[in-house]
């Protein structure tokens, strides 16, 4: 691979081609659907009762992520964010 390649023209690079994003999202949705289906098929050894709820981990992952990002952005950031030279002043 040419490590010092100049910025290739748009459309030449696989990751910035217009169709790539759609394809990636399609793959992600397919995998997610497969995981949800697989849950019904797999024998699961659970310890807590809520682990048996269908899609518990999927829902928890999604919600936890959104909560984390929003709390960090709208609660923590306004409290702790300062200019970059805060400690130099």
């Amino acid at each position: 691979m040419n490590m010092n390649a100049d910025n290739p023209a748009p459309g030449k690079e696989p990751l910035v081609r217009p169709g790539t994003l759609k394809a990636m999202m399609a793959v992600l949705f397919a995998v997610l659907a497969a995981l949800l289906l697989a849950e019904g098929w797999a024998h699961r050894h659970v310890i807590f009762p809520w682990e048996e709820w269908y899609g518990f981990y999927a829902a928890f992952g999604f919600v936890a992520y959104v909560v984390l990002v929003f709390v960090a952005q709208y609660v923590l950031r306004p409290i702790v964010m300062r200019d970059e030279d805060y400690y130099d002043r």
Partner: protein
Amino acid sequence: MIASAWPPGLILILAALPAALLRGLPRRAWMLLVPVLSLLNMLSLPEGNQFLVPFFRQELVLARVDRLSVVFGIIFHIIAFIANLYALQVEDRFQNAAGLVYAGAAVGAVFAGDLFTLFVFWEMMTLSATFLIMARRTEKAMAAGFRYFMVHVVSGLCLLGGILLQVQATGTVAFGHIGLGGGLSSWLIFIGFGVNSAWPLLHFWLPDAYPESTVTGAVFLSAFTTKTAVYVLARAFPGTEALIWIGAAMTVFPIFFAVIENNLRRVLSYSLINQVGFMMVGIGIGTELSLNGTVSHAFSHILYKALLFMSMGAVLHQTGKINATDVGGLYRSMPWTCTFCIVGAASISAFPLFSGFVSKSMVMEAAALGDLRLVWFMMLFASAGVLHHAGIKIPFCAFFSHDSGIRCKEAPLPMLLAMGLAAALCIGIGVYPQPLYSLLPYPTDFQPYTAGHVISQAQLLLFAALAFALMLLSGTHPPEIRAINLDVDVLTRKGGRAFYRFADSTLNALNDWADEVFSRRLTRGLAQFFRMPVCNLQRLGFRALALLYGNHEWMKQKMSVSEARCETGAHPVGDGVLRAVLLLTVLTILVLLW
């Protein structure tokens, strides 16, 4: 004791001197050879206490060889080799020597069988780590290194105080199970260890100092200080309930800071605290499964965290930038670094087939078996959070995201080899964890790869990734902002300045006053007095008399006469005094002759 073997750690420490003196190819060969020799030496030691040194009616144990110390010794040597390989092209005496001493001190601390040996190696780590931070030689690095040093000197004193009290109370320096039942001494030791494990509120030194260290120094730092603390806590405080809650808090709070942090090496520092939190929970639960989980998680964590620090170090090394707002789109220029970074990101996120999966699940399962519901939920939340900051943010911001326009060279070959080796181990442990499991302190038949477990974890992570994708596409994902975020150290850093101002206004005023009174007025007065002390005494006496009896005319006359005598120095001497002086003279002569 084995005649041909050395105490573990000593080889690495002594090897620092040639490392500082050699140059070029011999130095490079030396840096790679030393960890291998030291590891072989360590593995040759039989189980039990070796290298016993008598010390003030006590016995120092330089090598306590058991399953717990050996597994930490092995991973410390592996990472010392990888970090030295990564730093191979760094021709800097300070860094080369400090890295080896730091690694050696960590190995020494892990094998220390008594509290004094442990303390000596503990302080040696502090000193060498400070050098690794300051070796970047920027103003910020110097200041951060100084702050690092101060924090660890204080915690070291706390530890020393605890050790002295402990030795006084128990009569032995042996280092074994301590627990919190021993009163003040055990608490001081507990807190001394806690500072190095970056407990909540005591953690601020870590995200302050590590991102300011050198490119290669951060790789060493990420491995040794916190994991040595994990080891000593696992040794001395297993089953201490406080650690469960400390650890659970550690898994959760740093991820919020990591989400909004701009400096990518600082993101990794917060993520480090989060991962050590899982280890703390494992120690706190204190069952065989949970302690195995702690040790195996420390083992795999050292590898993937070093890998992530190496990949971000390579970005910093090649571009001179590390803020998420300044880099981006680097996959074009640094495809190998990008690939290795993704392996590290997948490992820390605990994707199946990567190392984090086979170790973190042990701690999670131990918490579930102990019916620690809240702790379990906190750790599950943190697991989804890890995916955000370390799994997605690090590789995405550095290598994808917006195109920063930076076109640089790929990282140098030694760096790539080191990252490749760490990445291979991350995948190796993830795919085939049995060799790691066989090293753990307790025998285990833990099975990470059950269908249910794989599906649960994949769901958790991929649905979190879906949340990321949807937020990014809809524009609701928080942007990276050129800014810093306050942490607890604002209290010490700004508080330090406030104290300085307070001291300036109060103590300096007191100082000025004391200066005026003592060194100006008082000395002037005394000098004046002692110019004519007798005369001044008389004067004072007359004034006192005048106060008592009133200022009579005869007294004024006496005063003026005596003043005149003082000034001329002519006091009348009675013949009684003359006779006494003569007698003394004669006596002196007689004594001398006799």
